[in-house]
C-alpha cells in the first residue's frame, strides 16, 4: 500500500537523521585537556616537575612544557592520545612514550599531571576532572536588547 510504504521510508529517514545526530554527538564531543608539568605531593613523597617535556596531540600543534608549566590541548572524541618526550634533568636522556586514556563523556575538562604519570602513580592522582567555575562576567550584566541594531556585515 503506497502510503504505508512511504510512511515506512519517512520513519526510516527520521531515524537515520537521529542516528547521525547521536553519532555526531559522540565523535564530536570535545574536551579540554590541561597538561601540568608541576611537582605533586602524594602520601608523603614529592614528585618533581621535569625540566622539559615536548608534547603533541592529534589535532593540536606540538608544545613544550617547562617546569611548572600548564599547557592546553583540545581533544575531540573520548580517546586521548598524547606523545611525549620528557627530560627529567638537564643531563638525563629523554624518555619517550604515549599517554593513552579514555576521557569520561560527561567531563568537560581534564587535568593530566605529568610527574605523577611518569612515576606510575594511581590514576586518580594524575588524571582528574577540572571543574570550571563560571568566569566572572565582566561584560555589562544585562545589555539592553537592541531591537533592530544595524550590524556590520
Amino acid at each position: 500500500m503506497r502510503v504505508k510504504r512511504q510512511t515506512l521510508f519517512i520513519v526510516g529517514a527520521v531515524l537515520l537523521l537521529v542516528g547521525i545526530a547521536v553519532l555526531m554527538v559522540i565523535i564530536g564531543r570535545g574536551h579540554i585537556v590541561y597538561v601540568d608539568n608541576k611537582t605533586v605531593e602524594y602520601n608523603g613523597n614529592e614528585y618533581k616537575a621535569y625540566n622539559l617535556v615536548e608534547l603533541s596531540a592529534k589535532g593540536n600543534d606540538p608544545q613544550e612544557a617547562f617546569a611548572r608549566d600548564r599547557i592546553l590541548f583540545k581533544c575531540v572524541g573520548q580517546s586521548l592520545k598524547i606523545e611525549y618526550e620528557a627530560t627529567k634533568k638537564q643531563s638525563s636522556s629523554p624518555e619517550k612514550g604515549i599517554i593513552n586514556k579514555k576521557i569520561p563523556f560527561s567531563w568537560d575538562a581534564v587535568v593530566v599531571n605529568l610527574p605523577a604519570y611518569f612515576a606510575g602513580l594511581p590514576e586518580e592522582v594524575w588524571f582528574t576532572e577540572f571543574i570550571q567555575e563560571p568566569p566572572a562576567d565582566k561584560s555589562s550584566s544585562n545589555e539592553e536588547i537592541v531591537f533592530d541594531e544595524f550590524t556590520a556585515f
Partner: protein
Amino acid sequence: MKLLKNNSFNILTFFKDNSVPVMFVLICAVCIPVAGFPLQYLLSEIITRIGRNAFLILALLIPIMAGMGLNFGMTLGAMAGEIGLIFVCDWRIYGIPGIVLAMIISIPISVLLGWLCGTIMNMAKGREMITGYIMNYFINGIYQLIVLFCMGSIIPIKHSDILLPRGYGIRVTVDLINMRQSLDNLIAVRIGMIKIPVFTFILIALMCLFIVWFRKTKLGQDMRAVGQDMEVARATGITVERTRIISIIMSTVLAGFGMIIYLQNIGSLTTYTAHSQIGMFCIAALLVGGASVDKASIGNVFLGVILFHLMFIVAPNAGAAITGDSMIGEYFRVFVSYGVITVALAMYEAKKRRAKSLAGRKLAQAQKEEAK
C-alpha cells in the same frame, strides 16, 4: 542573467532589462580605484564572502520560482540555525560534527517556522512580501522570548558560560571558536595570501546542483506553474496552497543551513542581531545580480554576491577618499543596498502594469489599416 536568444542582439533592451547590475558595475568601477585596496586583498575578501553568503542567497530562489516573491521571511530559517548552534555550543560538540548536528537540530524548527510562515502568506495572497517582512519581527519576538528567557530557566542549558550572569537567557555574543572555519579549513587551498575554502564551495556547488535537479522534478514544475498562474494550476488539480507552503518550508530550511555556514565562517554568533539584517542583504545581493521579483537564476546569485560585496567592501574607503569622512561610505553602502531593493520592486510592479496598454495601440493600428 541568460541573454535572450532573440535575433538582433539589441543593446538597449540588454541595458534596460539589467539596469541594476550595470549600475553596480559602474559604482564598483568608480569606487575600487578610489578606495585603493590591493587587488589580492579584494580577491580574498570576495572569495570568503562568496563562501559565506552564496548558500543563503541560493535559498531565496525556490520561493521566487513558486511566485511568492522575495522571501523576506528567510530570517526564520536563520533563527532556527542559530538555535541549533546555541545547543551545539552548550553540549560542547566541536568542529564539523558540531556543524552537522546544528543543521540537524535546525531542521525541525525550520520546518515548523516555514510551515507557519507559508500558511500565513497563503492567507495574505498578493501581499506575501510585506507579510514575510512582518513575520520577521513577530518571530524575532518569539525567538527572544525563548532565547532570552526560556533558555537556562525552562530549557536546560548545561554550561553557564554561555548564559547571562543572571542565570537565564543566552549571552549577547556566543563564541563559536570550537567550530570556527572548520568547514572552510577542511580542504583549504592557499594561493599567495588568498585562502580558498574548497569544501564550502563544494557544498555550494551541491546546492546549485540540487536547485537545477529540483527544477526538473514534478514538484519544481508544479511550483513554476503555481508561480505563473495560480488559477490555471488549481484547475488542473495541482494543490496550490500546499505547493506554496512547501516552497517556503524548503527556503526556510535551506536558509537555516546557510546561516550555520555563514556563522561558522564568522566564528562568533551575535545572538540577537545576527539574523536581523541577513534577509535584507541577501535579497539586495540577489537583486544586484539582475534577479527580479518573479525571475531569478543561479547566475544572478553569484554575480550579485560579487558585485554587491565588492561595493560593500570598497564603499567606506571610497567615501572617505572622496569626502574625507569614512562614515559617508558606511551610509552610502546602506543607502545603495536599500535603494537597489526599492528600484527592483518598483520596476517589477511598473512592468506588470505597462503590459496592459499594448493592446490598445494594436486596435488603433488595425483600424487605420481598415480605413485605408
